[in-house]
């Protein structure tokens, strides 16, 4: 049994201009102790997928489908029921540690409240555990720094605080929503290394959301490529890396700048992500794809097996894509 099993997940937002469907029939699962990367450009629906799963959508959002966590349905549970799972079993860290920590509340309070509320610890015990968790994410002088406010930490240190805070209850699953996007490149590497180490120490699973393929390569077991709210390709990270079978994945791969490349200009995928107001009839990527066939514009491709554990949604024959 998988730790998390997502079936036919749909996320829709009701706006003044009509219904926007941000996520369309997404299916995936993650096993215990694994790292799954969700990759896609801005607006591809990757964040809304996890917000939908955990009931954190904005008020106008609605999620349908099924999300089984440890064999139990958690999608659209009441807030009270979800609160017993959040932080306790499924914890989250976010893109911008600058704004994701409350600037008006001391770090100590933001951390201890998790333990006090979920595990009923006393204030002093909660503080002790929070300090040792800050030590675990390698924040120097944690005893004193825990009394500070978020703005007194640097960006990388703040993300460490976020990570420490999310791990307080030893969750089974950590959802990391672009954890390194707002950080310097050198700090990014440190944070990814830290996450990988902690994942081993704590034996948890991680869903890593990112648009940075460099981050994905070294740090995930499986990956899932999203575009226009749909899954384009899913499989083992090494398989997809060695032979991407979807034109969109290929485009992403070739857009990664390489040091040994003599070309001055970076490769890009021409065009813009689709307008989610009106869901495209065919493949959402068709307007930007180099291989578009007639039926790409009319029929939505379904995920088809490429090899074991490797699926793609594309009408174009695999051999034609190079």
């Amino acid at each position, binding site marked *: 049994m998988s730790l998390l099993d997502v079936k036919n997940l749909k996320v829709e937002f009701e706006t003044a201009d009509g219904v926007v469907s941000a996520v369309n029939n997404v299916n995936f699962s993650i096993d215990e102790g694994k790292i799954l990367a969700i990759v896609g450009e801005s607006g591809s629906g990757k964040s809304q997928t996890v917000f939908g799963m955990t009931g954190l959508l904005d008020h106008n959002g609605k999620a349908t489908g099924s999300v089984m966590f440890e064999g139990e349905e958690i999608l659209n549970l009441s807030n009270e029921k979800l609160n017993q799972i959040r*932080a306790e079993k499924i914890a989250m860290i976010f893109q911008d540690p600058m704004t*994701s920590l409350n600037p008006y509340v001391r770090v100590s309070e933001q951390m201890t409240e998790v333990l006090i509320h979920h595990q009923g610890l006393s204030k002093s015990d909660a503080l002790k555990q929070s300090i040792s968790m800050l030590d675990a994410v390698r924040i120097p002088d944690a005893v004193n720094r825990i009394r500070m406010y978020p703005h007194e930490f640097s960006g990388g240190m703040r993300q460490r605080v976020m990570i420490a805070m999310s791990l307080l209850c030893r969750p089974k699953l950590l959802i990391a929503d672009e954890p390194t996007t707002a950080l310097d490149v050198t700090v990014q590497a440190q944070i990814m290394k830290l996450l990988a180490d902690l994942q081993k120490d704590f034996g948890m699973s991680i869903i890593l959301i990112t648009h940075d393929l460099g981050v994905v390569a070294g740090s995930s077991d499986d990956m899932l490529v999203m575009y226009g709210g749909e899954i384009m390709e899913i499989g083992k990270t090494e398989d997809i890396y060695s032979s991407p079978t979807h034109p969109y994945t290929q485009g992403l791969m070739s857009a990664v700048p390489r040091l040994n490349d003599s070309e001055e200009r970076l490769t890009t995928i021409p065009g813009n992500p689709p307008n989610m107001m009106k869901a495209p009839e065919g493949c959402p990527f068709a307007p930007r794809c180099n291989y578009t066939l007639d039926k790409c514009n009319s029929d939505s491709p379904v995920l088809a097996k490429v090899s074991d554990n490797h699926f793609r949604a594309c009408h174009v024959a695999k051999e034609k894509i190079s």
Partner: protein
Amino acid sequence: MINYIIKRIGIAIPTLLILIAVSFYLMHAAPGGPFTSERPLPAQVLANIEAKYGLDQPIWRQMINYLWGVITEFDFGPSYKYHDRTVNEIIGHGFPITLKYGFWSFIVAVGVGIPLGAIAAIRKNTWIDYLAVGVSIGAQVLPNFVMAPLLIIVFTLWLDWLPGGGWNGGAWQYLVMPVIALSTSYMASIARITRSSMLEVLNTNYIRTARSKGLPTKVIFFRHVLKPSLLPVISYLGPAFVGLITGSVLIDIYFSTGGMGYFFVNAAFNRDYSVMMGITIVVGSLTILFSLIADLLYAWIDPKIRY
């Protein structure tokens, strides 16, 4: 912090002096004087009276004399119109009245305004929100010179529940209508500021973080939402508090409360220089004091501000 307070008080003194100087000159620049009336006094008599009050001296001299009295003896001088009363007595009589109904208006404005705005923000786009917004817009467009007579018509003339005016030592029956009339528009502003700033806070990433931590709604609201939402309210409350406790001439006129606002406006009509100056100094000092208090409160809530 202490240094900052000392510095602010240091700035307050020259600010007050400038305020006094400008008001003094402006007051004297207006034509007429306290002893001009429709039936002119004989020139000699007028000159004698003016000499008695020192009004024959050059204006800078008058100002220095006045300031000297204020600083050394805390004496704001005699009233030019009420011959048996000093300015100290007039302020001593009017200010406690104004302070009392102003303070209660402040309590009502804050006590109703903040919860009203907060409920509207939390229940955004529901009938509760629409009702709260409707009430606050209604309260804001209804000026107190309309509000006051309406209250008197309803509660005094129709229902006969409350006295239509007077003070009676500030008994509660005499307080209710002045407080309602004075507080409504402030309450409405506070509610609207609270609502919009709370909506902003509810949309921030750190509130999403708090939700992702599985905290009960109550904890999220009181620990994470309330404090940052009140920041804009506090910057409004400093000047609003001074506005409330220094009174409103309309309240004093409609309800015959006898507060400071009444004396201030009368003094302006009568060219009662010393009463005008006295009240100007009181209001000016309070304004400076309460903007300092608002700034200190701000720093207390926002850890990024340290003086």
